[in-house]
């Protein structure tokens, strides 16, 4: 399932020569809509849910959703990148919240 783009938050990475989500996607799936200047996924069936785009988005505008055929609504998994760590917040369909702080690099 492609990441959902929050149109309010996405600023099209104006300052970059190419939006960061577009630069990073291993499947070449993210790009900008030339009219709205907002990101979108060009081939929704082809996303691997690797979350590279979600991790890199500076505006927190992207959210991974599972295809409904595989998992129910409205679970969430939100990464927040730090310098040497990543913080994940996971909310399941019953509203149960879990938080994980994981080291990503040796200091």
């Amino acid at each position, binding site marked *: 399932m492609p990441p959902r783009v929050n149109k309010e938050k996405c600023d099209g990475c104006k300052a970059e020569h190419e939006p960061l989500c577009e630069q990073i996607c291993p499947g070449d799936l993210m790009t900008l809509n030339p009219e709205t200047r907002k990101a979108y996924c060009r081939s*929704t069936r082809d996303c691997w849910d690797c979350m590279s785009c979600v991790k890199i988005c500076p505006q927190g505008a992207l959210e991974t959703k599972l295809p409904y055929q595989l998992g129910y609504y409205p679970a969430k*998994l939100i990464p927040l990148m730090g310098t040497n760590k990543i913080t994940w917040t996971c909310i399941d369909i019953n509203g149960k919240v879990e938080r994980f702080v*994981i080291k990503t690099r*040796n200091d």
Partner: protein
Amino acid sequence: MATKLPTSLAEVQEVMLETDLLVIGAGNSGCFAAIEAKKLNPNLKVTLMEKAHIDRSGCLAAGMDAINTYLKKGRTIEEFVRWSRSQAGGLIREDLAVSLAEILNQPTEQWEEWGLPIDYEEDGDEYHTRGKWDITIKGSEMKVILAEKVREHGCEILNRVVATNYLTDGNRVIGAVGFGVRDGKLYVVKAKATVVSTGGAAGIYKPYQADGVDSHHYLWYCPFNVGTGYAIGIRAGAEMTTFEMRWCATRTKDFNGPIDTISVGYKTPMINAKGEKVLEERYAHLGGDAAPRFIRANVPMEEWQAGRGPCYVDTRGMTPEQIRDMKIDYLNERPSFVLFLAARGQDIRQEPIEIYGNDPYIVGGHTASGYWVDRKRATTLPGLFASGDVAGGTPNKFVGGCAAEGMLAARGALEYINRLNSPTKVNSEQVAVEKARIFAPALRQTSEGDGLIPKEVEERMQRLMDEYAGGIHQFFRMNKEGLEYALKHLRLLKDQTKYLIARDLHELMEAHEVVDRLDVAEVLIHHLLYREETRWPGWQTRTDFPSRNDEKFDCFVNSRRNPETGEIEVFSRPYEQVVPGDRYRP
């Protein structure tokens, strides 16, 4: 941002580059090859051609939670080879496995110095182990760390350039051709030596999740590794080995995610619908929980067929701390699996995790499929070296082994460069032919505006392979008649690729992905037909030849496509035992 597709060949700009060492595929193995070359000779020009972006490309894009191959203190090379050999049903290139094991630990230790967090045992200075050979890591950023080092070593990186064929002089490889999926340019890179490290092939078979609107790529393996490295070798006449040893494995059901994280990491037993510990109780004679990987892949399939499915890994005995740790492991490797559990609202202490087989992949880092190489990782084409998931003969390489093999390939390539004394020239006729081939789907879109879009060809191929060549919907089983049917239609499909159209550069990439997958699938069928026995039930199950036939097939099955005629010749090569002992036991 996407550039417009060319409407004529004259519009296509050409970028001509020259380098000493070209690495095709800047994944795990390719990055280690590039860095090793620079370490050995900083004056060398090293260029990496990468279809995606080096920071997050290939298998490591989302990270890893373990390095499955590391020799801990006290473990020997012989032990490692014996284990790998028994896991692969007794048939591996032991000479290659030994040379790999000799330097296996180097990349892991290097990664740690570069900043990758590796877990330690609580009471000491030893890495924390998961199974016999696995160490656990916090690897979500490991590819980003590796890419930084490639840049620091002064390598030239061509991101978003898709390799489509080798440049050749006779049968010698002198670089590669590709196109820019962003700039629409033709890239011609002439090189003294070339390392291919494009990973394995996903998407040859239909995944069972494909029915969902947005779930076509719920694959275990990286769906953007489509087997191009195999395909360009096949087209150039390189010898390939053991494609029939397909990578079918037990995966988490529906999500198709890695399973070792739970089953090896937390020693959760595999159970069937009746609650029986299947491996322990029903497959004890084949090794129980330590049975070879193909046996373990086949078990959930057998249980379903016998009416005892679905199967699970029994997580109900895990402690809350273990479950938390397990989720952390997944967040480092396949984070969306944690979302999957949340989206199922599943408390795995109450409800175990369901497992099933995956769509089969061709992945030489897990099984033995790929280029036939020597100890230097030289392929049968002079000037071309192979490493990682694309190189054959050595199963069970995984992260550490693929990285180490990249180093070996670089060393081999540098020795070749130092011996080189005959200069070559790029054949402009060859480049013109390749340019026309690359952009044909774009030009057809301009001239005809009608034809086949890559996705429909891909889905036709995937369904054929699934139903007639032992896919997941056939419980991995196949016979001669089915395989011949698949082959007949694959040939038709290959012929029909002339009707492919591409409406943008992304679709042009997709067009070449399906062309490459078809070449891999065709060779795969030849291998499956040749091995008239069942050596690895699950990986390779011939219902018409259900037993192992050592007299005829205790050997490697190899193939070579004749570049002039397109004929695929299949033949065998002898197995040679290097490490003594029972081949079927660790």
